[in-house]
C-alpha cells in the first residue's frame, strides 16, 4: 500500500542527500519526493510517497527519525488530508483536434499555458488520480513531453 509521509526537516544543505541515501541503502522504494520551504525559514517539508506494508513503513519512519536533521514525521495515510500535484503536458494539437483538446482541458479545469503552431502546453493540478486521468485523456492526441511535480499534501482540519 502507498503511504504519504510528511517529513519536516532542518533547512540545511545535504539533508535531501541524507534522506535519499537512507532510502537507497535500506532498499525502500520512493514513489515520489518533493521538498520545499515552509512558513518557518529554518524548516523544509518533504512529502514522500513510499510503497510498502505496515512493517516497512514503520521501519522507514523509525530510520528517518534517527537522522539528526529530521524533526517530525507524520504518516498522512492515517489522516484525512489534501493532496495536490501539478503537471505540465505538451501535446500535439493541429487545427483538427484543437477544439477537442480545449474541451478536455475545460472538463478537468486545467489551463492552456502555451500555444505553439501544432502544440499546446496544458497545466493541471489535482490529486494524483485526476492527474492520471488527464494524462490518459490526452494520450491519444500524442504527448510530446510531460512533467509532474510529485505530491504535496497537508492534513485537514486544525492539526498541524
Amino acid at each position, binding site marked *: 500500500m502507498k503511504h504519504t509521509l510528511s517529513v519536516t526537516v532542518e533547512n540545511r544543505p545535504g539533508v535531501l542527500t*541524507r534522506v535519499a541515501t537512507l532510502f537507497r541503502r535500506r532498499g525502500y522504494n520512493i514513489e515520489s519526493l518533493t521538498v520545499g520551504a515552509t512558513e518557518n525559514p529554518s524548516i523544509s517539508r518533504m512529502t514522500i510517497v513510499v510503497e510498502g506494508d505496515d512493517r516497512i513503513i514503520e521501519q522507514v519512519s523509525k530510520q528517518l527519525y534517527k537522522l*539528526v536533521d529530521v524533526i517530525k514525521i507524520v504518516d498522512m495515510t492515517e489522516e484525512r488530508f489534501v493532496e495536490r500535484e501539478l503537471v505540465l503536458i505538451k501535446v500535439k494539437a493541429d487545427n483538427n483536434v484543437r477544439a477537442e483538446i480545449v474541451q478536455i482541458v475545460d472538463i478537468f479545469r486545467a489551463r492552456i499555458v502555451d500555444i505553439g503552431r501544432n502544440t499546446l502546453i496544458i497545466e493541471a493540478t489535482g490529486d494524483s488520480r485526476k492527474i492520471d486521468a488527464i494524462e490518459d485523456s490526452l494520450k491519444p492526441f500524442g504527448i510530446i513531453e510531460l512533467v509532474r511535480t510529485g505530491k504535496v499534501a497537508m492534513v485537514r482540519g486544525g492539526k498541524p
Partner: protein
Amino acid sequence: MKMRGAEILLDCLKKEGVDTIFGYPGGSVLPIYDALFNSDIRHILTRHEQGAVHAADAYARVTGKVGVCLATSGPGATNLVTGIATAYMDSVPMVCLTGQVSTALIGRDAFQEADITGITLPITKHNYMVESTEELAQVIKEAFYIARTNRPGPVVVDLPKDIMEKVIEYQPIRDEINIRGYRVMRGFNSGQVLAAAELINQAQRPVIYAGGGVISSNASAELLQLAETRKIPVTTTLMGLGGFPSTHYLSLGMLGMHGTRYANYAIGESDVLVAIGVRFDDRVTGKIDTFAPNARIIHIDIDAAEIGKNVNVHVPIVGDVKEILQALNQKLKPQPEYGEWHQTIDRWKDEFPMRYGFSMEGRIMPQHVIEKIYELTGGEAIITTEVGQHQMWTAQFCKFKHPRTFVTSGGLGTMGFGFPAAIGAKIARPDRPVVDIAGDGSIQMNIQELGTAVQYKLPLVICILNNQFLGMVRQWQSLFYEGRYSFTDISHQPDFVKVAEAYGAIGIRVTEMKDVEPALKRALESTDCPVVIDFWVEREADVFPMVPPGGSLSNMLGGD
C-alpha cells in the same frame, strides 16, 4: 578572549573530557597540529590513519568514553573510512576530526580534497562540515553529545583549514545542548516492563540473549542480578562477551554460527527469550524463521528502529538497558530452581562440550594457545582480535570475566583491527595486560603500527596464530566449495620475528607445543616493549561447531 580556530577546537575537546587523541598530520591539519604542539592533550602518532581510527575506537570500547582521532583532508580522511564503518556497526562512540581544504577551494577538486561528509554519510551517526569559526564550538559540543548519547556511534567533523586559522573572539558554550531533531531517550514504558516481568516469572525454559548493548549501557551488574534472581541461563553475542562472566554457572557462552551447541539448543527450546541490547544479526539467528520458534520474545534496546527490524517480538521495551533492567529486577519473584530446564542444559553441556582435536603432525593447535593465554592472564587481560578463525576460537576458548575486556570488530568484521585496537586499549588501560590474538593474514593489514607500539613503549603481546592460510575463507572453501583453495594459501610471507626485530620489538617463534607457555610467560613479563609471538599452528584446523550459512541453529556441523 581572542583565539584561533585550532585553539578553540582543542579547548572544546578538553571541555568534553578528552585527554588523548590518535592521529596523523598533513597539510590541511597543520594549524591543528601547531596548536597541539604545546597542548596538554596527549597525541598518539600512528603510522597510518587506519591505525589511529581503530586505536581511538578501542580506547572508547575499553573506557566507555568518546574516542577521538584526527586525520588530514583527502587521503587522510578516506583512510579513516574502514575504521568509521567498524565503529558504526559496533555502536562505538567516536568523534573523527578531519582536515579539509580551505573554504574558498571546496568543490574545485583542490589538492587533497575529498568530500568526506558525503563519503561517510551512511556510516556515521551524524556528520558535520564546520562552516565558520564562530559555529565551531557549538558543532564540537553537538558532535560529542550525539556520539555518546542514545545508541552511541561515530560522528565526523570536517574542519576546513581557513576556519582553523581564523582568529575570533571566543566564548565557551555554557548552554545545554538542544537539537530539535535529536532527543535523548529518557524513561521507558513501565507497562511493558510489567508485561515482561510477568512473562519471565511464568517461564519454564527462559534464556537470556545478551549483546553489546549491555556493555555500552554499563548494565552487567543488572544483567547478573536478573539472571541470578530467576536462575536464567545467559548466552551472549560476540559483542556481548564480557557482559556476563563466562565462568558463571548460568553462562552458555556465545550463540550463533560458531556458538556452543548448548546455547543454540537452549534458544531452540526456550519458551521465553529475553533479548537485551541485541539486533538479531544473521550470524546470530541463522535461518530467521527457525530462530527461537517456541519462544515469546522480549526485546530491550535503546534503538527503536531495532525493534521488529529482523524478527517480530512480543514485548518490546525501548530505552536504556541499565534503567530497564533495574526496574525489571524489582518485579521479579526469586526462582528457587528450574529443575528440568537446567538438567536439560547440563545434559547438553556434558554431551557437547567445547573441544578440539589434535594435530596429526604434532603441530600446535591454535585453540590450545588461546586456552593458555586465558590461563596465564586469569581473565584479567584485555584481549583484542583481528577477524577470522582466530577471532572465533578466541570467542569460544577464551573466557571473559569483565565487561570492556574483549575488543573485536563484530559487525563489520574488519581484518587489521586488532593490533591498532590493542594500542588504543593499552593507552587507555596501562594497568592491564593487553593481548592481540591475530591471524597471519590480518596482522599484515596493519603491521606498520609496530612502529607506534615501539615508540610509545607499549608492552603488548601480539600472538599470531600462523597457519599460512586465510583460514576462515579456506574453511568455507573446504566445506562449501569442494576444497578449491582459491587464493587463500599465503605461505609466501615475511619472517615475523625479523619484522618485529626490525621495528625494535621482540620477536619469538614457537613451533612446539611445549614452548607455548614459556613464550607467553616471557612476553607477558615485558614492561616496555611489544612482543610478537609467531605460533606455527596446525594449518587446516577448522572452527567448529558451525551453523552453515542460512541454516538453522538446531542443525550444527561438528563439535558433536
